[in-house]
């Protein structure tokens, strides 16, 4: 049954049909709460794509989802399910804050590489323990990464309330980062080449880092020895072992890369936007990474497209919540339906399609 369908059907058609199903059901929800779905879509398109201000927000959210989506995608290639993006990004934020507050940084050019390194290291460290437990002791990585999300939230809570909060402040947050760590926004960057872009939008240089990460992940998975080992291990563990691939090494390295990618998200949110560390700066982006990786079929280019789609949904949803009675949580519903149809109910779309393509092929021969 493997080659029943042409490749384009597997890569493009099935995700597209799943997406349409998810959107149709979302439209049903919008109708059920007495709103007009077409008007809602129009408002989302203007609010998320209608101006450079709107694009600035869409790309800002997309940056988060690229990082978390890549994190889930890399793990998927080794058939590991990393639900811990939320916790890894939380710890990444801690790393960024520690670095930004440690020194009186003279210029962002110096602060950015240090923050990137810290975010990646902290994220990877938070993935390392579940990875080691999976590799060495066979503890199910899904459960351990879920547990580490909660433990990470507690660690951050403790650090903000008891350690990093400035004296006299009630707010569980760090003080503002020094000006030398403030990252250039897309407005600043595009002004260099003479393109006008909204000054108020939070999209920043981290978007370019995210694009670079897409390219690097593509190179890693399809152009390096480690990537080959990851994919081989993901396809068949016994075959990989016969080929001399060490499972412990693959599981550890895959999860370290995955955790580092999730941690990098904090460069965008903590350093690029908030410019201080607050509780819950991740805001569920770690989980949206699951939807993004599923939609993007674990390919960096697919992840990029899916991340921009979810950035659009996120920003459009915020606009809806602002101007209509539709609450922001509608986006969570859409996200859930996308995960359900592209992930769990994949066969529901695939089986009839396979039958269709089989019938077409029989008629031709």
């Amino acid at each position, binding site marked *: 049954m493997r080659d029943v369908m042409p490749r384009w059907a597997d890569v493009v058609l099935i995700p597209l049909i799943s997406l349409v199903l998810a959107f149709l059901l979302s439209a049903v*929800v919008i109708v*059920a*709460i*007495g709103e007009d779905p077409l008007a809602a879509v129009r408002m989302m398109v203007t609010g998320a794509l209608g101006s450079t201000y709107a694009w600035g927000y869409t790309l800002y959210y997309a940056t988060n989802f690229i990082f978390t989506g890549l994190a889930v995608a890399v793990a998927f290639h080794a058939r590991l*399910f990393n*639900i811990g993006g939320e916790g890894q990004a939380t710890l990444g934020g801690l790393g960024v804050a520690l670095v930004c507050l440690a020194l009186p940084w003279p210029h962002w050019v110096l602060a950015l590489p240090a923050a990137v390194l810290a975010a990646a290291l902290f994220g990877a460290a938070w993935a390392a*323990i579940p990875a080691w*437990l999976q590799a060495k*002791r*066979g*503890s*199910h990585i*899904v*459960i*351990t990464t*879920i*547990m*580490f999300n*909660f*433990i990470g939230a*507690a*660690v951050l*809570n*403790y650090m903000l*309330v*008891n350690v990093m909060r400035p004296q006299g402040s009630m707010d569980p947050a760090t003080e503002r980062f020094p000006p030398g760590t403030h990252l250039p926004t897309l407005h600043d960057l595009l002004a260099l080449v003479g393109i006008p872009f909204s000054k108020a939008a939070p999209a920043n240089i981290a978007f370019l880092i995210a694009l670079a990460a897409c390219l690097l992940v593509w190179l890693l998975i399809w152009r390096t020895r480690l990537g080959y080992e990851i994919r081989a291990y993901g396809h068949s563990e016994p075959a990989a072992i016969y080929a001399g691939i060490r499972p412990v090494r693959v599981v550890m390295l895959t999860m370290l890369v995955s955790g580092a990618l999730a941690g990098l998200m904090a460069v965008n949110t903590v350093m690029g936007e908030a410019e201080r560390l607050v509780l819950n700066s991740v805001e569920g982006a770690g*989980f949206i990474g*699951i939807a993004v990786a*599923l939609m993007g079929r674990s390919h960096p280019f697919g992840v990029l497209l899916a991340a921009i789609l979810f950035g659009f949904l996120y920003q459009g949803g915020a606009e809806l919540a602002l101007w209509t*009675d*539709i*609450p922001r*949580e*509608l*986006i*969570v*519903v*859409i*996200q*859930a*339906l996308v*995960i*359900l149809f592209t*992930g*769990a*109910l*994949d*066969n*529901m779309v695939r*089986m009839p399609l396979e039958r269709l393509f089989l019938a077409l092929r029989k008629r031709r021969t």
Partner: protein
Amino acid sequence: MMDFATILQVLDSTVRLAAPLLLACLAGLFSERAGIFDIGLEGKMLMAAFFSAATAAVTGSVWLGLAAGIAASMVLAGVHGLASITFRGNQLISGVAINFLAAGLTVVIAQDWFAQGGRTPSLLGGARFEAITLPLADTVRPVPILGPIYHDLISGHTIPVYFAFSMVPLTWWLLYRTRFGLRLRAVGESPEALDTAGVSVVATRYAAVAICGVLCGIAGAYLATALQAGFTKDMTAGRGYIALAALIFAKWRSWHALWATLLFGLLQAIALRYQNLQIGGVPLPVQLMDALPYILTVVILAGFVGRAIPPRAGGEPYVKER
């Protein structure tokens, strides 16, 4: 030092807080023993909490609320069954989707129906489960030690609490002393053996998922109509995941599930009561208490305190041989 009355109070709130964990844990036990991983316990509880509170608020009857909560949880259980049994999808991804679906839908519908920022109106009188006083509770109260234990700790809970604790022996009996239980355990270990014996794998697994739905429904309804008076956004607050942790802690056995959920309930009760706990002069941060169930579960999973071995066919869709 804590006096006897304080200890009783802490244990009393332990029982209240352990009850929903226990129900959800047993729900997961049925599902996972049948080979269907379920990380959607949280979502099913949340959905049930909302629909039970909404129905109870509108009709004024807690029993109608309970029925609505169970029904809502069953719908999500049906989705999980469809995805993981009929369409042989990834059970973990289905569970994640269900959790998000519940987190989003409850607030969207609550805002549409009640327009109170994603809450239901507060429940009063018959719209809540009332505490019941067991027979002779007031009579034996003056008896030293045993009297207060009976009056304060054992008596004075709501019906779902008693139901939750009576489900423990019932679950044991159902799983180990009935034909259905044998089949349910078999389908989680070796579905092909059950298939060879002529028993439907699909039907057995759907039955397990349905029981899981009912128990999660009761757990959610308890949260909204007994433990608290109404639904608030994300009110399950990770209890579904703690139940999952307890299930692993209990190594998928019913009596152990009782002890595990009581332990986690005790941790919650202590964290709730003592914001600044000291052990040997060293202050224990409240965040450590919050994180302790998860840390303990990781330690258990690591196999340092006895190995937790899940059902062998767990998470694997069954494909009939041709």
